[in-house]
Structure formats: structure tokens, C-alpha cells
């Protein structure tokens, strides 16, 4: 019960600043201007992403409204996911779920998308290596190598991926997508690389006034998401599978 003790937070803060101090010292010792420890600012364009960051999301289901789907429309708009008029086969990177507890009658509403696992089953089963996990924890499909076999869609416990069945047109420059490839939530990777430090869904949720989605760096103890998780905790869906998802939920 680490949240019930008032002193816990104080102790962990001390430990954290001590570790940070050590890291900063280490960075100074290597070379001037080179830092081993960095906060989640925009990286330079020519620098590869690193495992210093682990991007993740925190969903507060208590703030999520049952009849709101702003996150879904924002995602569709941001990534150019236009409907072809057949909902069964339209791409779906994020969807809304309403789960009712039969005992209490309480309805929990939440968005469901790629959970950006540390050990993603989609990557395990991919025969071409197209499904991969970027160093910073974002799980992506390299559509140049994807052959559209859809093994990953079957392996994913979260039903997060979509297959493009038909030729597309007018894709957005930052979001190339086409027939014969599997795709899913990219955690707005183009925005992350640009240094926006937010996703389209989280921005839309905040502008609707719900603030149920919080994007951030799970590795940075000073990020809002880490602070929230430390204070209130969070649940990983199907944590029994040991995938260590990057998306956490509260209130489920």
C-alpha cells in the first residue's frame, strides 16, 4: 500500500534527484555538451530516436464521456482515415468502448487503440519484420516491408490493427497508407518527432474539456503522465499477458 503513506513521495523524490544528479555528472564526465540524461524535448531531426524515452498514454475512464468520440474523429482527421462507406472494412486506429458491469450497472467508457507493448505479439509473429517497436516504445508497421498477411491482426489481443482492402487516394503527406498493408495507431509519430509532445486524440479530448487522455514519456519521472501514474496508479489491460503496454487506464 505505497500510496497510503505520506512519506513515500518524499523519499522517492530524493532518490530521483540523487539519480538525476549522478546521470548529469556522468554526462559531464564524457564530454562537454554531451548529456546522457535528457528530458523529453524535441530531438534534432538528424538524431535517431532512443530508448531514453518511452512514449505512453494514460486514459482516465472516469473523465471519458460515454457519448463523446472526439478522439476518434480527431485521429481520423489527423491521419487522413477517410471512410470508404463500408464500416466493416474501414480503417480504425482508435475506437470507443462502453463496458457495462452487470452487477452494478455502471458503464465504463474508454478509447481502445494500439497499446504500444514492450513485448508486442504483432512483432513476434510478423514474418517479414515489418511490425517493429521503435526504440522509444512506439509500435509501428514498416509498410515498405509489410506483405499484408495479417498475422499481426490475429496476434493482437487488443484488436488494434486494420487492413487496407482498397486503393486509396489523397493520403496526407505525413501519413502514407495504402492497399495491402496493415496499419494501426502510430501514437502520432509524426507529431512526436516534430516535438509536439502530444497526440491528436489527446488534444481533441482536452479541447472537449474531458482531459481523459494524457500523453507523455513514461521514462521521464518529471513528466505529467509519470507523476499521475505514481500518484494514482494505472491498470494495463490484459496485464496477465506480460506485454507491458505503454497505455495505462484508470478507473477500470
Amino acid at each position: 500500500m505505497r500510496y497510503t503513506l505520506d512519506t513515500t513521495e518524499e523519499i522517492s523524490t530524493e532518490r530521483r534527484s540523487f539519480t538525476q544528479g549522478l546521470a548529469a555528472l556522468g554526462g559531464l564526465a564524457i564530454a562537454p555538451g554531451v548529456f546522457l540524461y535528457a528530458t523529453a524535448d524535441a530531438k534534432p531531426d538528424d538524431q535517431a530516436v532512443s530508448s531514453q524515452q518511452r512514449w505512453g498514454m494514460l486514459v482516465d475512464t472516469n473523465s471519458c464521456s460515454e457519448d463523446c468520440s472526439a478522439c476518434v474523429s480527431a485521429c481520423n482527421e489527423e491521419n487522413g482515415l477517410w471512410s470508404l462507406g463500408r464500416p466493416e472494412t474501414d480503417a480504425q486506429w482508435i475506437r470507443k468502448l462502453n463496458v457495462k458491469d452487470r452487477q452494478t450497472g455502471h458503464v465504463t467508457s474508454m478509447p481502445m487503440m494500439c497499446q504500444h507493448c514492450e513485448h508486442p505479439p504483432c512483432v513476434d509473429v510478423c514474418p517479414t519484420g515489418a511490425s517493429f517497436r521503435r526504440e522509444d516504445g512506439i509500435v509501428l508497421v514498416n509498410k515498405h516491408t509489410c506483405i499484408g498477411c495479417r498475422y499481426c491482426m490475429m496476434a493482437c489481443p487488443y484488436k488494434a490493427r486494420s487492413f487496407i482492402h482498397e486503393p486509396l487516394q489523397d493520403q496526407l503527406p505525413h501519413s502514407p497508407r495504402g492497399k495491402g498493408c496493415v496499419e494501426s495507431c502510430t501514437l502520432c509519430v509524426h507529431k512526436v518527432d516534430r516535438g509536439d509532445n502530444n497526440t491528436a486524440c489527446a488534444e481533441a479530448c482536452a479541447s472537449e474539456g474531458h482531459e481523459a487522455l494524457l500523453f507523455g514519456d513514461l521514462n521521464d519521472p518529471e513528466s505529467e503522465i509519470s507523476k499521475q501514474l505514481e500518484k494514482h496508479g494505472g491498470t494495463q489491460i490484459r496485464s496477465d499477458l506480460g506485454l507491458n503496454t505503454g497505455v495505462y487506464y484508470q478507473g477500470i
Partner: protein
Amino acid sequence: MLKGLAGITAAFVFGVLAGDPQDIPPPKENYDEETLCVEPVEDMRRQHFEYILDHRDKTVVEGIRTKQYSLIGCIDCHITPNEEGVYARYSQETHFCASCHQFAAVRIDCFQCHADRPAEAIQKAQESDTSVQRPVQELRETLELSNSAFNR
């Protein structure tokens, strides 16, 4: 024999016309005053695919998003509107990439997924639509026109 020769001549003339630089709107700006493009023009004509092939893996896997060999950068600079303000599509021979690919009989699949026009052109095309969900019938028609080669 004569027929064959005429055919070859016609193909040659058509090929030259297809690549006629006068029909293609000029690039927006020079990346570099000296080399004009991101590398010397002669080099780009022969090697551009090597550069973008190398760069695409770096971008997708490592998140390196430098502008020099980025396909978005190529399109942004080279695909400009003609005098009527219309941006060419890859299916048209006045499209910068298509003008040469058609002449050289090269078939690429970049633009099945990647945008063949800059963001402002796509935005302009979408402004007429009031919602994200575009009219289905209209979309089907445009798809069939431009992607007829890839249709089932």
C-alpha cells in the same frame, strides 16, 4: 517493316513529348544555389531512388527526419501548380516524377501510399468537402480514374 519503324518513331516522339520540360511547372526554389537540387542535378537524375530508399528506412525505423532526402521534400519543391493553379497528379504526364518515369518506362509504387502532391494541394482539394467523411460515390469515381491500373 515500315509499320514497325513508324511505330518506333511515334513512340520516340511521344516519349520526348511526355518528358517535355516546358509542360512541367518549375520547382519552387533551389535547395542549394550551386547544386540546384539536394545533390548535383546529374547525380539526382541517376541516383535519386538510392537516396530516398536509404532515407526511408532511417525515417521509418530510426525516426530521422532530415529534409535533404525526404520524399515529402521532393514533392513539396517539385510539384508546383501550373498557370491555372492546378497541381498535377502522378497519373498525369505533367507530374514531375511521372514525366520522366513514363519516358523511361519505369513503374514505381511510391504514390500508391505516399502523397503525390504537397499538403497545400491536398488541403485545397479537401476544402470543398465539409466533413472528414467524404461523399462515397465521388471518392469511388476519382479512385477508379486515377488508380485504374491497380484496380481489381
